[in-house]
Structures are given as structure tokens and as C-alpha cells.
């Protein structure tokens, strides 16, 4: 017969169990997955917590700098105490690198290399390591323009790999591809849209085995998939953006949920927040999905036209940099433009917002920090910094530090 413990002991056991669970949860990488993918955990380029410094240089507010073995527009990601970055090298850009650094010291913990199995050509301004890797907090999913998809754990152990262009030899774009993968539940979603074999696939994140594959328009797209929908996993869906449409899909089956058949930007990705999709379409268009039917168009603002960088959204405001380097701030409720300010340089990387500071890094390494006034009516550049190199990444942010990479180096920018 089972012995019943006194209530007091039961409570103590429960408390101990919860404490242990909490400690275990805190110790798992997923709990510390600070910036696990392109544009951060919510794909909206917004972080909370301590702000990185407003200015930096090689001799000021640089915690460390690490050398990189190759080029890459891809962005660093931060998983717990580790910073992961990809690059590509070689005359033909056919050498693929995944590197892991200790976030505190900048020490390189491990380095894995692979050979591309797909096409490696790109415009000179890009490189094979254009997509940003993604992580679920325990596994890393590195993706490349050559459509090689590689899964490693945080210790650098290879879990699986796929050559999507080895499977489908006409998948590729000689201008380069840049769509970053996402992880949703047990599925890694990789978007391979081009003039040849054009598709999106969902693969089992534990094995790399294909779960679904859907045909896509035979046109080049550089935009990245976005997790959208409700706060609960079961309500989430995948947004796929092509130049001719924006579609929503069930992440488990890939099944089409709805389609918005209007022209969209081929590079700049959309954002989803609180049930509204802010689509990079005909400028910017706000959409609200309806269950079982087409989307409602809430508003459109043609003057909110993103450049290569994607928009970000926070506190009811949209921020966007256009091809001329003009930063616009607009109301998320109706698209009304509140203010504009010109930044210096050309921007490939998406800026990020930490509290009331927006951090933007131009292609030539000029960092500009814009402080947003409390009521959002004004944005003012409060810091300008310069690092040497070519920068196409979007910064990652974690624990008050900013991580940026050029074609040669990875920096941790943080106050001492």
C-alpha cells in the first residue's frame, strides 16, 4: 500500500521539485536563447533589457574582436553564452564555416567546415554565407546560398545535414540566395525560391528528414520566412513572401492557409505582431488574417517602402530604412508617417531597437544610434561610430551587448 506523505512534506517536495525544474530550465540553452535567429526571437528586431552603448570604436566599448575565416552577410546569433556565426570562403565560395565563440571572452570554442553541394555563385556584394543561422536553443541550423542546411549541437557535433540543391539540382540563384531559416515547433523551414527548382521545405529539426515540400513561384526571392499568428504554438503559422504573393502555411504540413496575391518586396521581409502582419508589399501594407477566409487589408502606405533592410515594430510604431538611407517612423495603427531622418550610408542589415534606442549599421561600418523620444514623436541620432570593413549583417543583441560581423571580424560591443 502506498504511503501518503504528510501535507507539509508534500509541499516541500513540490517546492523542491519546482526549484529544481526552474534551475534546470534556466540552465537549458533554450532558456538563454537570447537572439536565436534573423531579427531576434520574435523576428521583429526588438530587444528588451540593458541597452548597448551609444558609441564605440576599436578602442572604446569593444569587449572583444574575433577573426573570421570567410565572408558573409549573415548575422550572428546568440544562444546562452555562445555566439554563433557562419561564413564562406574559397575562390568559388564553396567552403562553408560555422563558428562558435564564448560570449564572455570571445574565445573560439569550435569551428566546423563543409563543402557546398549546390551552386555557389553570387553577386560580388554577397557571399554563400548570406542566410542567418537559427537555433531552438539546443540545435543550430546553418543555411547557405548553396542551399546546404546543416544541423549542429552547441558543442559542434554534427546532427544531420541536407544538400537541398543536391536533392533538387536546379535550385539556386547565381545572384546569390539569402533567405534565413526559422524553427517552429519541431520543424525547420527553409525557403528556396528561384527561377529553377523553387520550393519551401519543412524538415524535422531532429533528423533533417523532409516533412513537407511545397512548390513556389519560379522567381527569385531573398526574403525570409516569418513565424506569425497567435501567442500559442498551435496558433502559429509560417509566412512566406515572394515577389508576387504573401502566403500563410501550417508549419506541420505546409498546407496553404491563405494567400495575399499582391506584389511584395523581393528582399525586405515582413513582420508580424499581435495578430497583424505588416507586409513589405506596395510600400507597407497591414493585414489581419481572418479564420477561414482571405485577409483584411487594414491600411497601405506606399511611401513606407523598405530598402534591403527589413522593417521593425515596437510600441505601436514601425521603423524602416529605405534605399536612400532615410529612417521613417510610422504609426502601426494606420501607417501615418510620424517623422523621418536621414542616416549616413547604405543599409543591407536590419536595424534593431533596444528600449528607446535604434541601432543601425551601414554597409561601410558606420554605426548610428537613434534615440526615440518618449512619445515617439522624434528620433535623434545620439551616437555615431565607425568600424572598418564591409557590414551587411543585422546586429544581434543580448545582455546589453551588441554583436556585429564584417567580412573579416566579429565584434562584441559592450560597455566595460
Amino acid at each position, binding site marked *: 500500500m502506498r504511503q501518503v506523505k504528510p501535507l507539509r512534506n508534500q509541499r516541500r517536495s513540490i517546492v523542491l521539485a519546482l526549484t529544481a525544474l526552474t534551475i534546470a530550465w534556466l540552465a537549458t540553452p533554450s532558456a538563454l536563447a537570447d537572439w536565436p535567429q534573423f531579427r531576434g526571437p520574435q523576428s521583429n528586431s526588438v530587444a528588451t533589457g540593458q541597452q548597448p552603448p551609444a558609441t564605440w570604436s576599436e578602442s572604446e566599448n569593444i569587449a572583444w574582436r574575433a577573426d573570421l575565416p570567410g565572408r558573409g552577410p549573415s548575422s550572428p546569433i546568440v544562444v546562452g553564452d555562445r555566439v554563433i556565426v557562419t561564413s564562406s570562403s574559397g575562390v568559388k565560395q564553396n567552403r562553408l564555416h560555422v563558428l562558435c565563440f564564448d560570449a564572455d571572452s570571445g574565445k573560439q570554442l569550435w569551428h566546423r567546415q563543409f563543402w557546398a553541394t549546390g551552386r555557389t555563385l553570387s553577386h560580388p556584394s554577397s557571399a554563400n554565407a548570406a542566410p542567418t543561422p537559427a537555433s531552438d536553443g539546443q540545435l543550430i541550423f546553418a543555411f547557405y546560398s548553396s542551399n546546404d542546411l*546543416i544541423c549542429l549541437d552547441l558543442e559542434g557535433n554534427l546532427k544531420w545535414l*541536407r544538400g537541398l540543391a543536391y536533392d533538387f539540382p536546379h535550385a539556386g*540563384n547565381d545572384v546569390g540566395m539569402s533567405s534565413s531559416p526559422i524553427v517552429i515547433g519541431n520543424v525547420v523551414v527553409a525557403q528556396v525560391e528561384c527561377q529553377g527548382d523553387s520550393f519551401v521545405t519543412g524538415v524535422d529539426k531532429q533528423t533533417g528528414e523532409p516533412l513537407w515540400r511545397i512548390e513556389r513561384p519560379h522567381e527569385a526571392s531573398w526574403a525570409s520566412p516569418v513565424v506569425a499568428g497567435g501567442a500559442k504554438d498551435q496558433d502559429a503559422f509560417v509566412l512566406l513572401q515572394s515577389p508576387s504573393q504573401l502566403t500563410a502555411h501550417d508549419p506541420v504540413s505546409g498546407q496553404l492557409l491563405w494567400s495575399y496575391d499582391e506584389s511584395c518586396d523581393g528582399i525586405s521581409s515582413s513582420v508580424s505582431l499581435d495578430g497583424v502582419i505588416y507586409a513589405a508589399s506596395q510600400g507597407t501594407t497591414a493585414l489581419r488574417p481572418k479564420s477561414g477566409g482571405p485577409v483584411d487589408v487594414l491600411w497601405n502606405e506606399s511611401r513606407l517602402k523598405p530598402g534591403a533592410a527589413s522593417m521593425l515594430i515596437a510600441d505601436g510604431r514601425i521603423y524602416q530604412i529605405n534605399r536612400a538611407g532615410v529612417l521613417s517612423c510610422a504609426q502601426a495603427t494606420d501607417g501615418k508617417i510620424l517623422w523621418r531622418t536621414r542616416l549616413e550610408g547604405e543599409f543591407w542589415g536590419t536595424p534593431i531597437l533596444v528600449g528607446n534606442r535604434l541601432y543601425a549599421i551601414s554597409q561601410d561600418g558606420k554605426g548610428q544610434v537613434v534615440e526615440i523620444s518618449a512619445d515617439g514623436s522624434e528620433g535623434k541620432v545620439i551616437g555615431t561610430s565607425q568600424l572598418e570593413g564591409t557590414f551587411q549583417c543585422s546586429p544581434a543583441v543580448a545582455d546589453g551587448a551588441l554583436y556585429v560581423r564584417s567580412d573579416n571580424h566579429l565584434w562584441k560591443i559592450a560597455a566595460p
Partner: protein
Amino acid sequence: MHRRPKQMLWIVAWLVAGGSALAQSNDLAPSLDVLRNVGREGAGNRQASAAWSQLMSYADADQLPTILAAMDEANPLAVNWLRAAVDAVAEKHVQNGGTLPTDALESFLEDKRHDPRARRLAYEWIARTDPSAPDRLIPQMLDDPSIELRRDAVARVIAEAEQAASDEQPAAALAAYRKALGAARDLDQVKLVAEALAKLDQPVDLNHHFGFVENWRLVGPFSNVGGIGFDTAYPPEKRVDFSAEYTGSDGPLRWIEHHTDDPAGHVDLNKALGKHMGAVAYAAVEFHSARRQPAELRLGSPNAIKIWLNGQLLATAQAYHANNVMDQYVGRGELVEGRNLILLKICQNEQTEDWAQDWKFQFRVCDALGKAILDVNRAPPNVARNKPNDKPATE
């Protein structure tokens, strides 16, 4: 069924590599076999993941040559599994203060029957722990089947040439540049050397060097309106008859002879056949090979393409105006001794942008490393067209 020689090689290497590690090598075999058996669309990934973990649990640095040898004749996915294993084992060993088995790795490197990428990987780990490795090993790699080892060797010879030129020793510089040109396979190195030789009044016929085909027979336009032409087999695809008359999109068509003097061997179809959009052109050449030999048919074009060799379709790409570089598309086949018929299909679409008006191609025949295979009847180099002020061949 007979195993291929390289497959046998990796098995032999697995048996002998590491000397005293023979017993351990035997232990690696099941795991390596699993890694070698991964396939398309994720096939074998589950098993490979377990095998890779198992390999990490007991493989040691002495067994690196065994893992490297498993890359011989392996498919590209398997090669990546194996490469990751080599790197992980070596990295862990070095981080723990161990020394790598450089003698065994050098033996592996020296055996050119092994996979070129595996040999390069062996070299890189040797060089990581032995600073003398580049000076000791690379100078012997000028004719190496590894394109990366060869490139490093060429770079050293170029540096020697530049030093000689700087020291005002033109004869030594010339000899070194010539040596580098003979070994170089990468476009950037060839261009650099050619420019240096031109300054020494020794211009290089780069069209000849690369083997760009300059004399063609062309016919077109056939219709590609709405993109229909790419998959439409017009009469030249069924039978190449240089005396035939066809019905094209604008009327009757006949083959015309065309010679290009372009410094990079481009054939501009807008000039040769007239400006057309939504159009298909065919280009054919009778290519005479000195012997039966494997060959790569390499094509650069901003247009959608197909490549046939002796009636066999070797490569297709239905992409328009997405880059245009030398050797962009590669068809692998075998030349027969004597006459070979090469047929290209070059499709232009109907985009209206300024940057989408090119309708052209650049083509050559070469070996797997990129050395030109020339038609036996090709005229000798014409260095006069590459005087110092001429634009050197580029993509």
C-alpha cells in the same frame, strides 16, 4: 560487381593507416560505412547521426588518415559528414594539447590517388600544427589534382616572379610567370599573370589559353515568347544539318557562320542574329578531339541554356539574367576521338529592363581542373590581340 580502384584504396588505407591503430581502424569501419551511405532527401541521416556520435566517442587522432580515406569516391553529403568528423577529432585533440600524426597525414597528402579535398584537409591540419609545412610541402604542389593546393603553389611562384621583377631580373621574372601560367587554373591568378607578362612584352592569348571557342554556326530566332521555347525541341535539337532551312519566329532561317574576336570569347547574339526578345538561338561547333577523353563543357551566359555533346544533353538551366560569369554552367561528358558535335541552346526572355537585354554566351571545353582542351585544328595563339593595353579576358 567490381569495386572501383578508389573505393579499394580507401579500404586498403583503412586497413593500413595508423600502423598500430589497425585494431582501432577496424572499429571505425562500421561507422564510416554508415556515414558513406547517406543519400538524398535526408536518407541515412538518423543512422549517420548515431554513427557520427559513436565515432566521436572512440576515434582518436591516429585514425585521422582512416577517416580521410573514407572520403574517396564518397558522395558530397557523405564527404561532409566525414569532413566534420576529421575536424572534430583533430580540433579536440589539439585543444587538449595533443599532437597530430603529421607523418601519417603527410603520407596521406602525398598519395594523389586520394580525394583531392581530403588531401587538402590533411594539409590544413598539418599546417595548423607545423609552421614549416607550407614551405616544405606546397612548392611540390604546382601540378596537384587538388585545385586549392595547386592554387597555393601557384601563388608562391607568382610571389617569386614579382620579387624577381622588383629586383630587376626580368629573365627570372619571365620564367617564373610562365611557370605560374602553366599551372594556374583560377581565373584571378591567370589574369594577374597575363597582365604581368604583357608588361614584360610577352602578351598571352587568353582566349587560346582558356580554350574559348571562337568559330560557331548559329541559327535563330525561334520563338521563346512566354518562355515556351526552352522546352520546345526545335528542329536543330532533333538533327543538326548545317544545310537545312528552318521556319523561325520571323521567317525562314539558315545556319550562319560566326567568328568572335571578343577578348573574353563572348558571342553576342544580338549582334550576330539581330536584337530579339522572347527568342531561342542554337549554336553548334564541330570539335575535334585528339583522343577519347572525359571533358567538361563550360558555358557562361545570362540566358537560359542547354548543352548537348554528340546528341547527349549534359546541362540545362532555366534562369534569365541572374549573373553571367565564366564557367557558370558545366556539362560533364566524354569526347570521342575525332569529330564531336557540340550544340548549345541560348534562350532570351522578354524582360524590358536595361540589364536584361543581353543575349550572349561564352563557351569552352576543358578538363576537370579547368585546363583547356583545344580542338586539334585550332589555330595557334594570337598574342597580337592581347597587347598590354588590350582588355584581358574576363568573365
